[in-house]
């Protein structure tokens, strides 16, 4: 296998390759560090971090579904201070970029996290706007284009690192939402977050998840993710990190051909702890097989 050039540039940050981890599925890297060489990842996207520690939802928090899974972790996290203290020094030992996923229940909370990260040694911010907006009755920030523009603009004003906005797929028109983020000044987009779903234990006659509903991820949702990446890539000029059901290098190539610059591996880690490495190798294999010299040669190639 000849060496291929896998470098990609996301919002001004150069990654050695497009393969990253999907937020919330890879902790802060320590655990999967037992299975994979973190140096080989384009970036580690850490779990969602809030201004203070969040306890998350009650258990059970997971349900297996056909070709997918539901989770209702509820963004349990130790808070930004502990994150800065413990996780950044660990990750910085590796030659990989650090992308911090940010959670909040109000615009102020988002801004507080971002401000605290201003002086931290990290590369990119990923704003998770699927969080429920408590001031607006718990509806997700990400379901209204005007709200997306507003929260993006506010966070952008206080952020020091480039800002990627991560979109929720639970919307009528993803393009309109993406344009909202663009108008707010986003430097990039991540899509998709999980689809809202539910599973029932018919024997116990109750929902499997203590939280009743949860987020659907895994290969089951890939067609929805590909469609959204494709639509958004056609309509918006920002770099996209694509995710949703990526299990193999071929899945990753599908996202890249749909228009993604980077790709993130989530649920697949649970099924195969070396999934990120397998995806990386699969991309290399495809590029070799078809003589693709650099990833941008096939990015968004679908008319």
């Amino acid at each position: 296998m000849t060496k291929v050039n896998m470098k990609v540039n996301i919002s001004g940050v150069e990654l050695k390759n497009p393969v990253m981890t999907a937020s919330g599925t890879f902790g802060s890297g320590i655990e999967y560090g037992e299975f994979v060489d973190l140096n080989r990842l384009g970036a580690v996207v850490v779990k969602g971090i809030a201004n203070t520690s969040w306890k998350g939802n009650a258990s059970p928090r997971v349900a297996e579904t056909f070709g997918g899974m539901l989770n209702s972790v509820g963004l349990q996290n130790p808070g930004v201070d502990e994150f800065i203290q413990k996780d950044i020094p660990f990750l910085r030992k590796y030659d990989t970029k650090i992308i911090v996923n940010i959670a909040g229940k109000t615009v102020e909370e988002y801004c507080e996290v971002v401000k605290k990260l201003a002086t931290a040694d990290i590369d990119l911010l990923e704003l998770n706007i699927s969080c429920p907006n408590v001031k607006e009755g718990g509806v997700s920030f990400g379901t209204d284009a005007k709200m997306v523009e507003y929260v993006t603009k506010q966070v952008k004003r206080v952020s020091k690192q480039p800002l990627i906005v991560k979109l929720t797929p639970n919307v009528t028109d993803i393009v309109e939402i993406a344009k909202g983020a663009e108008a707010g000044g986003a430097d990039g987009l991540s899509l998709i977050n999980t689809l809202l779903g539910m599973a029932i234990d018919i024997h116990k006659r109750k929902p499997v998840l203590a939280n009743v509903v949860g987020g659907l991820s895994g290969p089951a949702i890939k067609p929805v993710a590909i469609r959204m990446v494709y639509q958004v890539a056609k309509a918006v000029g920002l770099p996209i990190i694509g995710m949703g059901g990526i299990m193999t290098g071929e899945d990753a190539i599908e996202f890249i051909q749909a228009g993604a610059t980077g790709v993130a591996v989530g649920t697949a880690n649970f099924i195969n702890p070396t999934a990120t490495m397998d995806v990386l190798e699969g991309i290399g294999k495809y590029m070799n097989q078809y003589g693709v010299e650099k990833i941008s040669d096939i990015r968004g190639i679908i008319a």
Partner: protein
Amino acid sequence: MMEKLQLKIRMNEEIAPKIYKIIFLATEIVKKAKAGQFINLYCNKGELLLPRPISICEVNKKTGEITLVYAVVGKGTEIISTMKSGDTIEAIGPLGNGFSVDEEVKQHLIIAGGIGVPPMVELVKFLKGNITVYLGFRCNPILVETIKQYGATVYVATEDGSVGIKGNVMDLINQHNPVAEMIYSCGPKPMLKAVAEWSEKLKIPAQLSLEERMACGIGACLVCTCKTKKEQDWENKRVCKDGPVFWRDEVIWHD
């Protein structure tokens, strides 16, 4: 570094209705395994993505073999039960913390129920001193002889009274009023809760092995939490990584 292992199955047999004993060659796991730890088995069936956590029942350092005992309760265990000697099964492990064994302790009490019994086999092998074991089952007891064979005194309760006393492990406790310096327990939540209350009253330290639905099994995804005490407050700990064995004093019971 750890990796996803391809393990050769040596045996996979039904030892009681819907309860299987599987043995495979797993030198890498055997080297590190401790009683109370578990391994993640992959079903290798397209639509079933998540691994199945199963406790280590026995490890054989000499042969490099590992034994698990599992109940067929759903699609994943169903598929695993159809695998044959010679087939390969994917797995990672050993995972979790396992029981802590204190050499000073001489009077051990093990309380286990149903499919919570298997991890006690490996534990018994490592305990020194007096070991009393109370086992509860709905009907068909499993692993009783195996545990006896390692030198423990075993009492059995079955709900239908077919073997041992009619009742559950708490009935055994009430009958025997056992003394102990350390309790080890694994089984259904109501049983663990009862053991926790009883041991607390008697001020005997207890290690409880909990169960929760999991995804990664290695501490990365935070889906497998259990409520635990933390100073004035509480926090969610990971059953897969911080557990599955917790000290009784840590656990906050909820349902």
